[in-house]
């Protein structure tokens, strides 16, 4: 995942998040058990934390720009 250029990676993550939202909407409308909604929500959050918010930077601070 990290071999892509930061811009391209942003696009890939955006597409994944979009697809997950669509799946979530499908689950919601067709009354699937709500644990599935929670799972999709948690996966989306982890993706945003990791790739959009760069949570790792909090731990290894001297890592300048975008890895």
């Amino acid at each position, binding site marked *: *995942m*990290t071999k892509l250029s930061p811009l391209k990676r942003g696009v890939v993550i955006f597409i994944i998040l979009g697809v997950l939202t669509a799946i979530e909407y499908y689950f919601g409308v067709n009354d*699937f*058990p709500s*644990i599935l909604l*929670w*799972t999709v929500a948690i*996966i989306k959050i*982890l993706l945003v934390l990791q790739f959009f918010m760069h949570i*790792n930077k909090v731990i290894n601070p001297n890592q300048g720009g975008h890895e």
Partner: protein
Amino acid sequence: MKNSGFWFLLVVIAAVGIVFGFVVERPYTYRGSLIDPAVPAPEFSLLSSQGGDYRLDSRTGKFILIFFGYTHCPDVCPTTLYEMKEIKARLKDKAENIEFVFVTVDPERDTQDQLKRYLSSFDESFFGLTGSTEQLEMVWKDYGVYREIQETDNSLGYLVDHTSRLYLINSQGELMMTYLYETTLDEIVSDLNYLIKKADL
């Protein structure tokens, strides 16, 4: 690959969700008292407030919710009819699979026009059924409807004590469920949602 821990965590969460979501299937519990095996609904053909006769066997393919009451009823009947209107609203597009029927327990005063006028304040599509006392008595007996006249001295004339149960007939014309007056709106809507979805499959 530094991110391997991250992807592993993602896969674990997804797996847990799918297992608990699809594999652990919780059976749906009905809120009303289920009649199992469903019994063919006792047949009747009564004068309808929408004109003509309302024959039960000609309504297969639709769910029917029947309530026994009368227009001069002070409290339970108006609240139940209002709840029926609310149920229809909550079911949105699924509502055309269900019909709401109001059978009178006071044929002397509840004529077709009286029922039509009374139901127009709730919902035009509701069916108000009346008929001769003999006809209705047969229906009351079939559906186990308890009916007792209470003489009162005030202007309302007499009151009628009657069963406040809702009867649900499924799309095959079988009596499958009864709901008590206390069953909340959400419970009935959730049951009907489930049943209509199951019938469509």
